[in-house]
């Protein structure tokens, strides 16, 4: 291709912006949903009720063993049969990512919960707090603080993984860049642009994580 021509970046910006908005929305929703469901899954995995723990464990192991792009495809193809009605690519992406990320957040929250010393549970019980109160007021706040860096790092991974929605034709940032690249026949330049954008966003996020880590870390 010899020389590069970066003038294609200009006209691509509106599409990049739209794609980025979708990417961010997907990331945010999947993160929030994933953390909530993941925490519930973690509680299930740690619960003394064996069947519940088994089911949660099986779900997590399954999700962690299949490439995300296949999960995306499966959900897209299978949800219509479950619900009886087709769902759009975006809805499907949101459901898939939430369900998939929940498995990863579950593992993070599980180790977060386990990282809280056993003595804390004893102390809470000894004060007369019940199981649920102990979880809500004593264990989870510490687990989240301990795991915040890992939770956010996983979110950065999630942000990058959203590029896999190409498999179901949803239009994220990478897709938008790809289409512009094809229209102007400058695919390489557009890939370079998306690499730069991804890097800029992920790198700032990981810097932010480091700052946050210093701020919220529990003084022991």
């Amino acid at each position: 291709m010899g020389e590069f021509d970066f003038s294609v970046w200009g006209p691509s910006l509106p599409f990049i912006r739209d794609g980025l908005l979708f990417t961010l929305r997907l990331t945010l929703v999947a993160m929030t949903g994933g953390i909530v469901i993941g925490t519930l899954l973690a509680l299930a995995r740690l619960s003394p009720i064996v069947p519940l723990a088994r089911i949660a464990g099986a779900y997590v192991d399954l999700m962690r063993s299949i490439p995300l792009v296949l999960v995306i495809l499966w959900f897209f193809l299978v949800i219509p049969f479950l619900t009886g009605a087709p769902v759009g690519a975006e809805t499907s992406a949101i459901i898939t990512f939430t369900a998939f990320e929940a498995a990863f957040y579950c593992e993070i929250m599980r180790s977060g919960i386990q990282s809280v010393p056993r003595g804390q549970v004893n102390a809470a019980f000894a004060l007369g707090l019940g199981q649920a109160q102990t979880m809500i007021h004593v264990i989870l706040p510490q687990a989240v603080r301990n795991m915040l860096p890992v939770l956010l790092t996983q979110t950065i991974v999630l942000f990058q993984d959203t590029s896999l929605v190409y498999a179901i034709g949803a239009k994220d940032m990478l897709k938008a860049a790809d289409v512009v690249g094809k229209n102007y026949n400058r695919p390489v330049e557009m890939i370079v642009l998306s690499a730069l954008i991804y890097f800029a966003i992920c790198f700032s996020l990981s810097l932010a994580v480091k700052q946050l880590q210093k701020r919220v870390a529990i003084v022991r």
Partner: protein
Amino acid sequence: MIKIQNVSKWYGHTQVLKDCGTHVAKGEVVVVCGPSGSGKSTLIKCVNGLEPFTQGTITVDGISVGDPKTDLPKLRARVGMVFQHFELFPHMSVVQNLALAQVKVLGRSPDEAAARGIALLDRVGLRAHASKFPGQLSGGQQQRVAIARALAMDPICLLFDEPTSALDPEMIGEVLDVMVELAQEGMTMMVVTHEMGFARKVAKRVVFMDHGEIVEDAPVAQFFEAPASERAKTFLARILHH
């Protein structure tokens, strides 16, 4: 107040408590000692139901701890406990640590709970530190906060599990001072400790455990001057040696 009768406990195939029995009357201080792994922590945790036990009965103020019908949280709210590693909640300020259970368990209003908390902090000499976080305090200060936290629930008795053994030597004194004061005010206490000076000063009886058994249960003077068992003698020699 506390009655322990024929309590045994197994972890799988290993027996960690063997037919233990003792009692603590109202206003009495009983010290429990013994080598590491002898089951002291396990025994004291059985008293407020933090550890389930396999056989025997324990009653606290007439309520049976092992009975499945007993409302354990309610019972525990009336029994204070202080741990070796303080176990303050590190994500809450000192006064929040004191208020949490008062609000959530006793149903006191947040203001009332905070006021009671501050009063107790005053008592252990830490009023100035009310809004600090546990991690910003020294070990001795943290343990005094932990005692105040237990007192905030207006307990009928207090359990201590090696309250000074995670402390630097210069801080042991400040914690023991608070405990001695409590004892002198008539608090019922069951204390696992190796601080024999404390035992001599305020304990009524010493319970000596080894390998899950209560080997000796004797009045303080008798325990120190004429321990009945060989094991207690060796133990005392080791621990008073230096």
